[in-house]
């Protein structure tokens, strides 16, 4: 949560720069599979970025888990994540553009296994690559706002990789 707070403050401080800064909030559902079990925890994500060239931006992002997912007495949550990414997006056609993000992510996964007689907690931080693909639509009535759908993948070259689908709202600051 400290990441989220810091980013909101950062986004507020960047609003003075015309058209170059942006912030984004996303709600997503992640998919994690290991030990032949599937988990679908949800998370929120905020990003703050700067376009260094037309359609090329650099952003920092932070995720916080919203709800864990339980199956077979096993609870799993992507507790938090943070990282930096390079945003590459296509020129917009009819206010729609595609985007790709590639960058570095550090994410913390928490798993608890409980059978009623005791809970075993495992927390592990993973570091690796983030790759995202998505489509975004600029709103005609509010040109500073965009909505986007995104597929996101966190890969640490281990069994615990995270795939997610998310919906987001992006603000371009004026």
């Amino acid at each position, binding site marked *: 949560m400290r990441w989220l707070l810091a980013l909101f403050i950062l986004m507020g401080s960047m609003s003075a720069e015309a058209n170059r800064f942006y912030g984004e909030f996303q709600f997503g559902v992640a998919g994690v599979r290991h030990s032949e079990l599937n988990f679908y925890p949800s998370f929120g994500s905020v990003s703050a970025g700067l376009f260094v060239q037309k359609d090329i931006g650099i952003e920092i992002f932070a995720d916080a888990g919203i709800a864990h997912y339980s199956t077979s007495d096993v609870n799993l949550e992507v507790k938090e994540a943070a990282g930096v990414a*390079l945003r*590459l997006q296509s020129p917009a056609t009819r206010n729609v553009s595609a985007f790709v993000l590639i960058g570095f992510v550090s994410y913390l996964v928490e798993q608890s296994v409980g059978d009623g007689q005791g809970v*075993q907690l495992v927390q592990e931080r993973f570091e690796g690559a983030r790759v995202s693909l998505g489509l975004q639509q600029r709103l005609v009535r509010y040109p500073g706002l965009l909505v986007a759908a995104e597929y996101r993948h966190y890969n640490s070259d*281990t069994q615990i990789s995270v795939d997610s689908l998310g919906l987001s709202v992006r603000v371009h600051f004026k």
Partner: protein
Amino acid sequence: MSRLPVVDLPVINLLLRCSLLAALVVMGACSGDARPFEESIEVSQQELATLSVHPPANEVASFVDDAGEPQVFPLFVDVGQQLQFSIRGVNAAGEQFTMSGIDRTWVVSNPEVASMSANGLLTSLSEGVASIGVSIGGIDSTFYTVNVRNSSIDTIAGIYGDPSAERCLAEPYTALGLFLDGSTRVLDNVEWTVSDPESAFTKNQVANTIDLVAIETGSIDLIANVDGAQSLARSVVVNDSLTKIEITPSEPRVRVGETLSTTALGVYSINSNELRFAITSNVVWQMPENNGAASVSNATTTAGLVSGINEGSTILSAQCGMNGVVAQVPVEVVANPNLQGLAFQQSSPVSLSLATGTYELAVSTGSSYNSTYDVSTKTATTWEVTSGTNVVSINKGSDEVTISLLSVGDATVQVNYGNYSATITISVK
């Protein structure tokens, strides 16, 4: 008319360059261990309560004392020796089970003395003492102590195994050595012999364990020789508990040219209990000499395998000891339909163009061609052109039979194998 978003080529080029750069930046930065997550679930699903680690059983010097209690010596190994450790778990119900040792968090108390791979392979590095353990899903095992010390054998301390044996039933034996450093270790590189090869034999020497198979009742000495210098004999009493041998199937029936596995079960009377054990590879399998119908194997891996030779019948016997227990069953060797008649691979007539030059023919036994029973190139197979010798000629090679097309016309090719023959017409145009 709506248009799809179009991305121009310079942008694609730029995107690709940036993506490549970013990928290079994040590559090699991967970290994190997923194993604790998997092990946590493994522990939960198996209700794991306690863990223990174990070296290979045949490396641990142990014996049963006079009171019938198992005694285990501390484990000593030389520098450079490797041992594959395994893991046993006990669940909440007290049931013991083997767990995979692959990709575990093994613990070595003294890394200078021994190292441990993630898969449980210990390598001794220098003289000293190291304790080996493992941790799975937060549960720590008990530790097993390994002593690393180079030493040489002083004397053979003993040969351990059951003091008595049953006829034709394999019993395992191990030799322990007393080393110059005072340690007792399991001996490998032991040369085993028996005092009377007519009464017993040894087999299946794996690492440091040997199987003794006694044939005759009475007493037999099992002798361990190490380095040609050390020798110790162990007397084994051979009980007369084998009451019967049962051959399965009880009426073997095999086709000519095919094989059939038969097995021998020994019926033992031990402490008033009738027990059955497989003794297929410990008995002597026999058939009357020159019976002409079948033969049987006594090789270790194929013992009891009956081969059909010719149609007829004979007797199969399994015997334990010269004057011991014998079982006999009748064996019937029946005709093999796959071996009756001859059939060409090609349908007759075969129409060929003279320009073809050569053409391969194939023939098998049976009513239709089957490559399994191909006899084209067998020595006993003869080929001849019975008509039209100016049209084709036969070339029988070691791995194929071909005809050479010489001129336009019809020819008949005949093949003979045993009592069978077949013909095929070749029409050359």
